[in-house]
């Protein structure tokens, strides 16, 4: 569905924001763009949605070069921005009606979409009276109006409470189940791990790591087993990789003598990969 080959881009000839980037996204896949602020994620998304046509290399979406797309291009993609992109003076229903009227194909009912995001009772309320979370849900519904083949979601759970965040994730997975290709840009590693089939860590305009969340987590090394025990009346701690448990003499002794106070394993997470790859902590 999306094929990026040797992509390079800069706003000026001397500047290189993205350099020799390669990746592809299959139909029905959820692909995550992860990376620190300023890494080039938004620039990459602008290129993919055809807003920055002057790039080097090849960027194809649904068989079209994104920089030279035809009028039909935007019938195929839907974008849920991180920020609200709605007319504040209009109601939710009026907003959806207006945006739907811009498309030739409108295969989704605004009422059903509002119900799906839990806004059916607020359909006739002005968007200016909506909370941040309600606007985020309405934004998502707007992106789905024309039943696009490719969805770009930028921080879709940002500003949502845990319940609505869970509902949003279910909706995203439902779109995937319906065969949609989804590009997810997020700082939320838990969302990425839960939703994405594959993720790409973007740092300084290049992909530093790409794979399934499980592959990336496993590539960091095995989980650690941490334990505590009493020695000379004081609580001490020890740890070893889960793959080397049988070789840890101290642990074997503690197990035989039933002297363990606690024991638990800690698997690496995408957050650890993020820190490894980017050298930064999440803000």
């Amino acid at each position, binding site marked *: 569905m999306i094929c990026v080959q040797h992509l390079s881009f800069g706003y000026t000839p001397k500047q290189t924001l993205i350099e020799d980037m390669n990746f592809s996204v299959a139909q029905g896949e959820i692909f995550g763009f992860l990376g620190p602020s300023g890494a080039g994620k938004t620039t990459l998304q602008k290129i993919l949605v055809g807003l920055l046509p002057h790039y080097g290399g090849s960027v194809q979406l649904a068989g079209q070069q994104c920089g030279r797309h035809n009028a039909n291009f*935007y019938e195929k993609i839907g974008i849920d*921005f991180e920020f609200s992109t709605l007319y504040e003076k209009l109601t939710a229903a009026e907003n959806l009606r207006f945006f739907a009227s811009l498309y030739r194909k409108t295969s989704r009912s605004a009422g059903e979409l509002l119900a799906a995001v839990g806004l059916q009772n607020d359909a006739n309320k002005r968007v200016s009276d909506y909370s941040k979370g309600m606007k985020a849900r309405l934004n998502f519904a707007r992106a789905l109006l024309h039943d696009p083949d490719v969805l770009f979601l930028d921080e879709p759970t940002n500003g949502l409470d845990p319940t609505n965040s869970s509902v949003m994730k279910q909706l995203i997975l439902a779109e995937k189940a319906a065969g949609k290709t989804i590009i997810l840009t997020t700082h939320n590693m838990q969302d990425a791990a839960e939703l994405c089939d594959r993720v790409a860590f973007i740092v300084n305009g290049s992909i530093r790591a790409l794979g399934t969340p499980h592959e990336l987590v496993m590539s960091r090394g095995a989980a650690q087993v941490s334990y505590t025990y009493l020695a000379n009346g004081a609580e001490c701690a020890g740890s070893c990789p889960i793959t080397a448990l049988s070789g840890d003499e101290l642990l074997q002794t503690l197990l035989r003598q039933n002297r363990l106070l606690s024991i638990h394993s800690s698997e690496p997470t995408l957050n650890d990969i993020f820190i490894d790859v980017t050298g930064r902590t999440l803000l």
Partner: protein
Amino acid sequence: MKAVATGFLGLLKAVRRDHMLLAACSAPVLAGVAFRFGVPALEAALTRWLGTGAVLAPWYGLFDLMLCMLTPVMFCFAAAMVVLEEVDSHVAAALLVTPLGRRGYLTSRLLLPTVFGMAATLVLYPLFRLLALPVWLGLLLAAGGAAQGLIIAMLVVSFSTNKLEGMAIAKLSSLLLLGAFAPYVLQQNKVQYLLVGLPSFALAKALQGQNPLWGVVSLALCAVWCAGLAKHFAAKIVY
């Protein structure tokens, strides 16, 4: 095409919802009535009172020119304020990635208001004109006025971040229209040519001398102004 029509309809609805913009768009009619009926009546009163042949009559061309510029300028000002609101609320970003696209957005928010401004001028001018001008000159004034409306819309969007700033920039931008006064006020004084960079000055010269060459100069100047503002404007609407 459908998206452009829908986008333009959306613009008209946004203007209708905003009473200030609605008033701005109806201002040319009020000005036309005042010019057509108020100015000759005032002229008659002044000439009677002062006992002279003509007081305002030599300036009638300027009144006609202001009417021709006012209509598209107000239409384009209203469109610019809607664009500012859409940029501020990020709606512009969302519209660019719909079938409306960048070209459609510019068409519905800049080109069509300019064209409608010109069309409205062609309707209002024959109704409220003070001078009987040749048809080609009427068309030229309407086109020149519309082009200046476009410049003002681009200035307002390019250099403001919200509607309040937009109002201030619109007031400053309207100074561009003052070039029209120079040929009438300064008459034979060569100092007037200091304002030759203003399209309104060239338009006034075209009207005063009934000279199409000045009309071409005015339109060419408008093209230069628009080209100079295009980059600033484009940077404003992309998210």
